[in-house]
């Protein structure tokens, strides 16, 4: 623009201004501004969310400081609160859920995309996607009525007999507890993993498979060493999506986790997760400190999901740069 003489630039500015006025009159600029406002309000809402959580948790933040995150007591009567058992419960149930759901879900997705006849595969995927839309409270009800009695009578005694030498599988079998929470979460996130992973596996170009087979690979070798690495970013994305859902899942976990703010090595022991304690105690919390502590727990959960989300992005970006199908 440096070479343009001043009068011309001025004319350009004039023309732009008149274009702006004309656009405003015909509705074009109005549409631009209005949609911009809507887009900007997404930022505003998110900022308001963080701000509200922050200012409404001032009391416990000043009283406990960072000890809130390491404290293990939960004593509403004397106003002494620590969040460690809940953070522990959230992380353990989510990890357990992924440990069960990822191999199962990815395995099922490989079967549905590579081996199953298209018609069966499509029908199964339809039902699976239907189940991804079932409200979580229904999974919680089924967990209480079917899974918890089953775990108490057969599942946990069996684990105790076979793997009882590990501290993870010791102690009385209540049925409700971390194990039940992890199982319910696993069942809830499996539909996500299957449907997203199957989609990305199906999207791998058929030439990739043919090239591997032409080089003499067996079908499994072509699948495991060519197709799955090609689709790994999509599979990873589905896993992180599931992790985010597992961390924040409320009703289903609340109903089966047992509701005890304690940390114990055994998976059979009842525990608590952040979302569950908020759902359980928010309505009956008395006093400002109690309510604000629960709001601060919400802030902790929010921070946890942001950290996980950020890590997922960094991970995906770093693996994309190394070169892959996407």
């Amino acid at each position, binding site marked *: 623009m440096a070479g343009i003489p001043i009068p011309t630039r001025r004319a350009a500015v004039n023309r732009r201004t008149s274009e702006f006025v004309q656009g405003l009159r*015909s509705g074009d600029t109005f549409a*631009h501004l209005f949609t911009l406002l*809507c*887009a900007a309000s*997404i930022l505003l809402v998110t900022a*308001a969310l963080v701000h509200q*959580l922050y200012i409404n948790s001032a009391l416990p933040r000043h009283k406990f400081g960072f000890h809130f995150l390491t404290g293990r007591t939960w004593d509403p009567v004397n106003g002494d609160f620590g969040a460690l058992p809940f953070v522990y419960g959230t992380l353990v149930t989510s990890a357990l859920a992924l440990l069960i759901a990822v191999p199962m879900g990815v395995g099922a997705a490989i079967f549905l995309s590579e081996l199953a006849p298209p018609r069966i595969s499509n029908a199964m995927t339809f039902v699976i996607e239907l189940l991804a839309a079932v409200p979580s409270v229904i999974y919680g009800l089924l967990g209480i009525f079917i899974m918890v009695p089953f775990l108490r009578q057969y599942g946990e005694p069996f684990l105790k007999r076979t793997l009882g030498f590990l501290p993870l599988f010791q102690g009385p079998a209540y049925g409700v507890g971390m194990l039940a929470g992890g199982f319910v979460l696993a069942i809830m996130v499996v539909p996500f993993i299957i449907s997203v992973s199957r989609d990305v596996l199906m999207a791998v170009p058929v030439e990739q498979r043919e090239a591997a087979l032409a080089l003499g690979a067996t079908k499994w070798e072509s699948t495991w060493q060519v197709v799955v690495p090609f689709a790994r970013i999509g599979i990873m994305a589905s896993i992180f999506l599931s992790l985010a859902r597992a961390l924040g899942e409320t009703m289903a976990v609340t109903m089966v986790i047992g509701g005890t703010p304690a940390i114990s090595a055994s998976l059979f022991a009842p525990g608590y997760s952040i979302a569950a304690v908020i759902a359980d105690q928010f309505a009956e919390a008395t006093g400002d400190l109690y309510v604000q502590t629960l709001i601060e727990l*919400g802030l902790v959960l929010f921070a946890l999901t942001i950290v996980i*989300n950020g890590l997922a992005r960094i991970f995906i970006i770093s693996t994309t740069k190394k070169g892959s199908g996407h």
Partner: protein
Amino acid sequence: MRWRNIWRKLVNYVMFSLTGICALITVGVLFFILGYLIWHGGSALSWTFLTHLPTPVGETGGGMANAIVGSAKLLLLASLVGVPIGFLGGVYLAEFGGQAFCAVVRYTADLLNGVPSIVMGIFAFTVVVLPMKHFSTLAGSLALGVMMIPIAVRSTEEALRTVPMMLREGALALQMEDHRHGGCSGGA
């Protein structure tokens, strides 16, 4: 060499059988849940169940009309919050936006999408319930509406991106203004 080939074939069969078992277990569990819901829930479903109010604990009969009406009200109010903001925001991202600002909005929408529902509940509690001093459908709708925004934004944007550029150029050639051809692409 021969043994190696037999071994590779064996791995092939074993691993694919394992994936088959995975599929059988997961899909079996999911089918069981669906079947259980239809079998046990279906027998309890009747017209009275949908149109009557709940009876006190211990009495037989009654329904859940209040809960159904409540859900409908909640959904309506939530859509009033979530759909316009989400839809128009998505239109902006797909049709008007600049690079950097859009990236920020997109990232924030993804972030908002990952926020657990209980945190949204607390947000609505602090914004509506605390000042008004009582719980309300309004508070519930606000929480639900905010949860709708990111989903509406991203799906609107994705849908508009699949609209071919030719349609836009055609609309412009017919001397439509930008916002009208935005409406055309919205038809997709």
